[in-house]
């Protein structure tokens, strides 16, 4: 392996040499590289960041006690004063103060909210406010450079512009997060960012790509339910746009269908002839303790000490998770289990248990 790596390096060295040669030829042919190249940073983005900042507002409302900040960020999405922001306790104020980039203090009215995405639309009385176009087609790919504009920690006040961060889209994935002990309602796609946005006041900020398109809205502070750390994420423009359209049209968006409708009768370990080890801790591994003779489990060749790791293609990390996953599969259909037996994974299919007057096998 080391030799392989070394070989590679050698080859690259050779390539580098060629490259250097090539560059030397180029330099001879063109004017020398000089400090003037820094004007390469006659940078279209840098010129435009101020315009983007001008479309962000500072929101001040309820809170200010017990570590609950009374501020957040909002994005102007129409010249006549529509603002999209995060739905939070901050908006539960009689006098919602919206401070525009130029320092104008405006009164915000809550038009409507989407409890699923936890975003809200506000309206201020103003005309010709600089605004982003919220378009559901503003997609962005992982790895793309993006700019985050938010009033994290509420540092910008009055006519000060909100802060800008440059980052990349780390990935796009389904949101698996929780607030306290509770999972979030929204489980759709989010943009993960490789910068820190999980700061007080940042929620409701804009994520803008280099073309100046609003590609996302900074979400509220959440912890990942997978890694237990604070997530740096944004709601994608498509999701935000759809929700905002519905709010502005006064339409109630259909609640997303339950992730997976449960069958009326799902599988269960007992009916399959499986006895697991006693579940004593939250993450008790689902080891098979006993297999009932003549049961579907026995017919599939499962044995005591097998550790069940997958139901269909879902990982089961505990006895409790196993029952939950089994219940999602219709008891009238076969169910596929993957077990670990002596460092090998074995996938077996269990026939549906017979149902009779007695019910259980």
């Amino acid at each position: 392996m080391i030799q392989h790596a070394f070989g590679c390096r050698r080859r690259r060295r050779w390539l580098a040499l060629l490259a250097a040669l090539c560059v030397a030829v180029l330099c001879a042919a063109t004017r020398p590289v000089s400090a003037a190249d820094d004007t390469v940073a006659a940078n279209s983005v840098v010129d435009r960041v101020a315009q983007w900042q001008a479309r962000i507002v500072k929101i001040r409302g309820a809170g200010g006690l017990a570590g609950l900040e009374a501020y957040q960020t909002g994005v102007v999405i129409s010249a006549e004063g529509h603002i999209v922001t995060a739905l939070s306790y901050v908006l539960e104020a009689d006098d919602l103060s919206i401070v525009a980039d130029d320092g104008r203090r405006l009164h915000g009215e809550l038009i409507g909210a989407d409890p699923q995405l936890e975003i809200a639309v506000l309206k201020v009385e103003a005309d010709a406010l600089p605004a982003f176009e919220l378009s559901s087609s503003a997609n962005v790919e992982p790895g793309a450079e993006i700019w985050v504009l938010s009033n994290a920690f509420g540092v910008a006040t009055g006519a000060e512009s909100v802060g800008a961060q440059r980052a990349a889209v780390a990935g796009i994935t389904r949101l698996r997060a929780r607030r306290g002990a509770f999972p979030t309602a929204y489980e759709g796609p989010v943009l993960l960012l490789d910068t820190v946005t999980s700061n007080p006041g940042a929620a409701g900020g804009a994520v803008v790509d280099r073309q100046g398109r609003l590609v996302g809205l900074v979400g509220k502070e959440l912890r990942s339910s997978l890694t237990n750390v604070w997530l740096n994420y944004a709601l994608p423009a498509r999701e935000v746009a759809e929700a905002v359209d519905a709010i502005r049209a006064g339409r109630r968006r259909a609640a997303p269908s339950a992730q997976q409708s449960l069958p009326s009768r799902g599988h269960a370990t007992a009916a399959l002839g499986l006895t697991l080890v006693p579940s004593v801790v939250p993450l008790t591994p689902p080891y098979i303790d006993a297999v009932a003779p003549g049961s579907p489990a026995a017919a599939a060749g499962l044995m005591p000490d097998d550790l069940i790791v997958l139901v269909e293609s879902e990982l089961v990390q505990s006895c409790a998770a196993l029952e939950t996953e089994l219940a999602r599969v219709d008891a009238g259909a076969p169910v596929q289990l993957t077990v670990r037996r002596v460092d090998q994974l074995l996938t077996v299919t269990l026939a549906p248990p017979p149902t009779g007057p007695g019910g259980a096998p």
Partner: protein
Amino acid sequence: MTLHAVNSRIGREYVVRRLRAVGVALGIAAALVAGRGWANDQPTADDVTALRTQAVAEALASAAPSIVQIETVGGDERVEGQRVAVGPTTGVVVRQDGLIVTSAFNFVHNPSAILVTLPDGRRFAARRLASDRSRMLALLKIEGAEGLSPATAASLADVRVGQTAVAAGRPFEPDQLVQSQGIVSALGRFGGKALQTDARVSPHHYGGALLDLSGRTLGVIVPLSPTDNGAMAGADWYDSGIGFAIPLEHVYAVLPRWAEGHDLLPGLAGFRLNSNDPLAGPPTLSEVRPGTPARRAQLRAGDEVLAIDGQPTTRVGLVQAALARRYAGETVSLTVRRDGAERTAAVDLVDAIPAYRHPLLGVLPGAEALPTGVAVGGVLNASAAQTAGLQTGDVILAVDGQPISDRAALEAALAEHVAGEDCLLGIRRAGQSLEIRAVLDEAPAEGSVLASEAAHAVAADEKPAAARPPVGRLRTGPEEGAERYELFVPESFSPGAGLGLVTLLFDKQPDLDGAPLEAWRQACREQRLALLAAWPAEEKWSPDDLTSLQTTWRALQERYKIIPARMAVCAEPQGARLASLLAFGPTAGGVRGVATVGAALSVPRRENEPQTRLWLHQLPTPTAKGKSLSDAAAALEQRGYWVTTTALESDEGLLGDAARAALVRWLAVLDRL
């Protein structure tokens, strides 16, 4: 996009990639043809960003096959009081036969099963083959996976601070790489163990790869902390812009050994340096304990460390760093200067340096002080001395060729050894000189050791000296007017013969004229011991009593020529803490033996040292919590102290017959060597 822009803005590494991508010949041809036209064609920042984005995407694509997802089943929900992440994590393939390296952080919850999912979706059960406790890595093995792509390691020699670094992991779907862009922030962190990056890394990336722009793996991302060695150390720095990766090049270097399934542990040499300040210099060995690799390599206190493995070590920090990255089982070469001469020692590093425990020769020094040498006053049963044929009356004149002038010199000479080592004793026996080789023993952990003869008995013909301090029952104390203690000095006391001193810490004032205390006095007469009886002035012992006792001792030591090796304290339960302070406290010193009846000794943080000898004795009673006493004994043992236990059958204090008998047996051999 132009090659000019590529060259001036992104640099060689990208040029290399681009050239490889489009074909070298094509690249050169294009450059030559197009060259002239670029003179005034300024590339825009958008071009540069596009190039960078594309370069990162290509780097990720090239490394992607070697980056795999790891999942776990079962395990603890909390570790060190914190809820742990049990979501998917990442690993890096390092060998085609199924070896995968990842961060040990991913298994802090000790899962029952580990699954590895390849980017193409194939899943395998993984076995934890070995860990690297020095770098917080784990090595996994999967069986039967065809077509694995081991990661290509970036050569550290080419890595520069400031170059682009991309963290990559598979924390969500196995086919999706999550990235985080940054730069290499520093090299050689933690003594050369790790690279530092400013890419935001979190448990999403731990175990994943830190890539360069060519898609080579700089390192495996791990949480590390400069101050903490715990399993979760460094994880609280997630997303801070301070992230670490263990160079894959180092992993490959150690992989042949690691893959055999041996855990890799930090290597220890077993010496101390003159300073803990990394900037202090020149580094000098301040202590080289017996039984350590440094000692076996013939290093000595006072040696100045000039170089390690040929690298000059002008400051303490350089020595610390050179050792920090080495594993147990490896050998380092230390070049030292001693007495103006340079020498090089090969030190075989080990994974643990146990606390120093004094070995036992098994002799009691005689009471008489000789002009030179130490007389053997008694030989312990079944001891090294007895096996070697030492006899009462022998005079030890030399140990390992070094002359022995007195008892202290003999103690120091024996403290140069650990049990199992042999020492060469120069003996005078009946006017003849002889050499005896003795293999030193462990001090027995259970029960007292009986002497073959009573070493401290008063010789029948001894006559009391004419001029001597007062003897018999006396009142004494830290100062005049504060005579709070009762002292008893055997009537036969003679300044020439020396005397031991046992201090009894009673919970409350005993009957000073009663038979039990008289029995102690009788035992002290036989054992040539002075007896100091003390009890709290008020309800309980106070910190003042510590000073007061020590002051009293100093006066008595001077007046009665107390032998330091025969100084002991025996405490009833309330005095156990005071006794522990007298043994281990910041002002401790001068006491050889500490015993407690019906209470556990406090366990000190500091370990036993070669230069201080302590013999601790606990006497559990039926009501005393046996477990706390045995726990204390185990902890004290582990810190290298001699600890013995005598269980009492009834609840008694120092005045009980059984307690007294056990303590007197112990006191009789307290100064054993």
